[in-house]
């Protein structure tokens, strides 16, 4: 019964399918839909925040209005109860203003920080989902910067920028309406209630906003150019100093100096230009002009003494206008930030909606690994490029065989491995397993059965346990240990300070090339692949490591189809088939013995080795003796 349970459990595990997850690119229609979704993702927070924002806008103009009322009361009634009430009201307005401003800002902030968090995750998920075609042509540094800095910029467009712009508009709107309304309070009035002034102010503010917008539009591009140039200066110096030995040994210091001076000059030029463009902020002058106009007209009205305007109202009016200047001096920066946020959103959206050449089948077909693996007239060029890396490649690999892949740099070896992992699809021709075209199987299902141990072994800065179990996160400790033992790395792991919990890398243990490779083998063992791809070109090792590696690899190859790129001659000799590639074409396919006999490139390779000539000669001799070959 116990056994049954275990098999059941196992069956459940192997039946794993791809977890359904809706990507942002599926959820949102367009960049604008995505960018503005920040307003609707947390509707509760946003609604309350906006409510308080409106309350706050009204309350924050009260002190200015009440000041004028106070002055008028003082003038007509003198220092008394009403006057004191007004003073107390101003103080209350200040306190309530602080509270509403806090609530509105904080809630908005929370919603925006959440938005930033969400879009960063969305971006990360989408980019991870993109095929290797995408990752090959995109600089990972730029992707990282998008994930971190540009999402940050988008958040900055929301918090504080959009909120402050809305707040600025509201205060402008309210200040303008102060010039239109006239509400009696006792014997006094609140508001100017003068249409001509009101219209003038409305016109003035419209001009103000328009000019602020023009300013932001003009300065925005140059700021971005500035950022690009700064990036250039930074990467120029990174480059040189990382490769300082190369620079020195070719005596190229002067050339590099000259190159850098040019880059630096270009940046200086942009700094100057930016300064020139942004120095004259014309809306500020508009503000001066209509404060002056209101001042003059106000004085005139007060002087008429026909009740059109009191001294208090004049003071209120001026206070409100001056207050607006103070409140809005950040307006252009905020407008710029929103603009920048949208540009960043556009860039990110374009990356997220990358048109993937790899198309997943609607329904994934089953793979039957007891059938032969067939390359049928496969040609391949990297997406967007014309040059063929594989040219009309055809071969058949019987199930369970060990295949060694041989060929010079650029012969197409690694491309064959990538195609088998379905990191790419053939440009023409097809790869079959039995009758099943690999295109008809989802990448998830292909990779479930195919495992690659790559040349530059990538391990995560995590524990031994996590690194080995990376291929199977639900693996038990027992399974992990078994894999480690089979990969000949168990004793080593146990001798480290924290055993399987010891961290690999900068914060823990430093590994040699041979050790890294054995960890990768343990990781691959745990994946229990049907087809193993091994790019075996390790760093120089000593004989003990070599033997451990050979044993580990033997464990890994045992009982499955394997395709191995190797520098190990012993592997070549031991393999069932050797596939020899040159410039993207198959030049031979056969056993070691067969190649030794008929393939001149193979003979050439062996002849360079000590005892290699002997081997070839021996072969020739044996051929003389038994003409049909062994």
């Amino acid at each position, binding site marked *: 019964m116990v056994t049954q349970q275990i098999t059941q459990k196992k069956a459940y595990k192997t039946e794993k399918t791809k977890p359904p997850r809706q990507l942002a690119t599926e959820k949102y229609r367009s960049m604008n839909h995505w960018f503005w979704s920040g307003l609707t993702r947390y509707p509760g927070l946003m609604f309350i925040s906006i409510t308080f924002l409106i309350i706050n806008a009204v309350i924050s103009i009260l002190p200015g209005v009440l000041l004028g009322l106070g002055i008028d009361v003082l003038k007509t009634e003198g220092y008394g109860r009403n006057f004191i009430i007004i003073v107390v009201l101003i103080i209350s307005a200040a306190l309530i203003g602080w509270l509403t401003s806090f609530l509105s800002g904080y809630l908005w902030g929370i919603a925006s920080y959440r938005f930033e968090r969400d879009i960063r995750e969305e971006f990360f998920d989408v980019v991870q989902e993109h095929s290797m075609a995408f990752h090959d042509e995109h600089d990972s540094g730029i992707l990282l910067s998008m994930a971190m800095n540009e999402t940050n910029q988008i958040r900055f467009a929301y918090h504080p920028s959009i909120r402050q712009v809305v707040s600025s508009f509201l205060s402008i709107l309210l200040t303008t309406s102060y010039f239109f309304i006239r509400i009696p309070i006792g014997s006094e009035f609140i508001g100017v209630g003068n249409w001509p002034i009101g219209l003038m102010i409305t016109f003035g503010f419209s001009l103000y906003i328009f000019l602020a917008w023009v300013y932001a539009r003009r300065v925005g591009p140059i700021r971005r150019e500035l950022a690009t140039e700064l990036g250039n200066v930074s990467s120029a110096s990174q480059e040189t100093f990382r490769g*300082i030995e190369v620079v020195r040994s070719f005596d190229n210091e002067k050339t590099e100096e000259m190159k850098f001076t040019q880059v630096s000059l270009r940046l200086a030029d942009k700094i100057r230009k930016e300064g020139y463009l942004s120095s004259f*902020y014309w809306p500020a002058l508009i503000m001066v002009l209509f404060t002056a106009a209101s001042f003059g007209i106000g004085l005139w009205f007060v002087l008429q003494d026909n009740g059109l305007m009191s001294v208090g109202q004049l003071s209120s009016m001026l206070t409100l206008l001056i207050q607006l200047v103070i409140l809005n001096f950040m307006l252009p920066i905020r407008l710029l930030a929103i603009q920048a946020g949208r540009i960043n959103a556009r860039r990110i959206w374009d990356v997220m909606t990358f048109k993937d050449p790899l198309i997943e089948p609607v329904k994934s077909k089953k793979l039957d690994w007891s059938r032969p693996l067939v390359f049928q007239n496969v040609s391949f060029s990297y997406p967007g490029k014309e040059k063929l890396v594989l040219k009309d490649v055809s071969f058949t690999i019987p199930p369970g065989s060990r295949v060694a892949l041989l060929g010079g740099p650029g012969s197409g070896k690694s491309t064959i491995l990538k195609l088998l992992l379905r990191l790419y699809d053939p440009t023409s021709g097809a790869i079959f397993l039995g009758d099943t075209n690999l295109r008809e199987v989802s990448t998830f299902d292909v990779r479930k059965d195919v495992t690659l141990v790559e040349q530059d072994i990538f391990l995560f800065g995590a524990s031994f346990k996590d690194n080995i179990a990376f291929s199977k996160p639900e693996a038990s400790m027992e399974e992990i240990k078994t894999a480690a033992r089979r990969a000949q790395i168990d004793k080593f792991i146990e001798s480290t300070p924290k055993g399987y919990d010891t961290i690999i890398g900068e914060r823990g243990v430093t590994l040699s090339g041979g050790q890294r490779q054995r960890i990768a083998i343990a990781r691959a063992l745990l994946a229990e692949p049907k087809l193993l791809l091994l790019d075996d070109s390790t760093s120089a090792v000593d004989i003990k490591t070599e033997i451990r590696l050979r044993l580990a690899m033997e464990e890994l190859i045992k009982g499955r189809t394997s395709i191995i790129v190797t520098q190990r001659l012993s592997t070549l000799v031991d393999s069932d088939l050797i596939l020899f590639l040159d410039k993207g074409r198959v030049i031979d396919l056969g056993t070691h013995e067969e190649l030794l006999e008929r393939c001149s490139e193979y003979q050439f390779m062996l002849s360079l080795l000590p005892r290699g000539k002997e081997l070839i000669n021996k072969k020739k001799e044996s051929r003389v003796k038994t003409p049909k070959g062994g």
Partner: protein
Amino acid sequence: MGHGGGAGRMIGRIADRKKVTRPTPVLLKALSKYLKGFVGLLVLAAFLSLAYSATQILNPIILSNGIDAIDPSLGKVIVWFGVTLSERTIIIIYTLFYVLLGSFGFILNSLTTRLLSKVRADMVHKIRKDVYNKLINASMDYLKKEQSGNITARITSDTDEVSTGLQVFISIAVQLFLLVTTLVVILIRLPWQIVLICLGSIPFALLLSFVLSTIGRRIVLGIRQTFGIVSGKIAESFAGIAVSKAFNQEGNLSSQMRVLNQENYKMSKKFGLMMNIMMPLISSISSIVTAAILWMGGYLASISIGQIFLGTILAAQFLRPVAHLSLSFPQLQTSLGAVDRVLDVLEASPSIPDAPDAEPLGNDYSVSFEHVWFSYDNENWVLKDITFQVEEGEMVALVGETGAGKTTLASMLLTRFYDIQKGSIKIGAQDIKKIAQKSLRKAIGLIPQEPYLFTATVLENIKYGKADATDEEVYTICKMIGADTFIEALPNGYQTVVREGGKQLSAGQRQIITIARTMLADPKILILDEATSRLDAYSESLVQVAQRTLFKKRTTFVIAHRLSTIFDANKIIVLSHGELVEMGSHEELIRKKGLYADIYETYYKFQGLEEIDVEKVLEEEEEEEVELSPLAMMEMGMLDPEKIKKMVAEGKISPAMLEQLKKKMAQKKAKTPID
């Protein structure tokens, strides 16, 4: 000034505060050297800003006077040049005056921004160029100790910070002026009670800046830390994307990233809480001050309406410089820190200069080491009493365990990146200390183990050693060493841009490109540190054949990892712990059955077709050594300064690691007394 700023950025800059090692006068003096060319402009800018602040003070006074001028209860009659002005004229005059002054202020302010941006652009460029030129000519010793990221920060952000500091300095001067004049105006024009109310707002401004520079700084550091962690996770995931894809683990990494991202969000939320409590306080306090002034005005009864108005406006204006100033001083400190670091660079020791009697290298390219002793830190000898002679055109293989001193001997000393302490190195009959370095470097070609490629096309990378080479020459070289096939197979052939140090190329391909680069420069003496990540069998045989043609007629030093290389060598030098223990041909040394024979058995033999006796080797199996990273050693208390020094000398601690260790140590020290 300008329209930049934002409290968040200010706190960010304060958070960068680092200890300054030089006294302020020294820093200011150094800075003044760079100001020389800009004194005129700076004085002008400062003068314009002061004039601008004056208009800012005058504006409210005009408004206030205007209000009072039309107040019949004050009964003032204004007489200008003997003419009594009508009220209507007064209004016109005041309004015009306000417009003129306002526009004038606007022009002054804009001009200042413009002037300063010119100064900033030119000055930053000047400093940047100096720093860069200094660094590129600095001693290898200095450059190796600094990580390239740090060096870039010196060139980019620190130089920028210096000029920002200058702006902050001017702004402080202006704000102080504004503050003092406002005070004076208030003192002259308003009763002392209102002065008191204004002064009463100072503590609030100080509180504000105190909170921002303490709690705010801590939160910003926290945000940076969590931000860095998320960033590290994403960087790692992108770097390992092929692995996660191969094992279908994208979702797993996603959820790991989510956890870290949530931490960053929580920190940001704290920042939002603090900012939203503190920032609205400014306008609330200024409203309260308004109320207090209004009340005082009513209570005193002797104050005119114009004065009340003036009081409220000035009070609002008063609060800003106080808040600004209290944040500016720590900012200035940050900038001085940057000046300090820039000075570090400018005072760094330059690379080894040519001897006054230095001569160009002659035509004899034999190399001899005579009793050479060398150490990176004058304490731990990396090479001890090395003596050997290599004839022109010979190929020497250097063999020995990691840390034996092979790389130091070939790549660092012969190129004269470092000078030896004792003994002499000669090329032909010339001591390398007496050879003009330009001619030395021209004669020597270095192919380091870690191939370094620049972000440029493959063609440009190969031409790096010989800028005037024709494309044809490049093609010929590449054909010769068998690089043409794979380069032509690259997406854009020779025009393919190498990105991120060559991530689209295999280690072997990168190595072959660097070989092509060196060969194009046609050096007479060649130093090759073989890449440890080996090529596959066939590629290796191709490279091997290419190398045979290349090494011909050149004096060649190879730090050998390949079996084929030691077979080809004329002479093998065996190093152990900095000493030369054996020297001779392969056959001679094998016969000797000494260290070389051992090394051959363990490292090289099995690379060929030799069978290995698995049983025999496994019998004598021993434990593999566990090598902890320096950081882990430190956490376990296994490191002391002595040990670190030793490891740095042995090359076991990289500059980047050293930086981290120092940081960790400083943190530990800071913690201990509290604990």
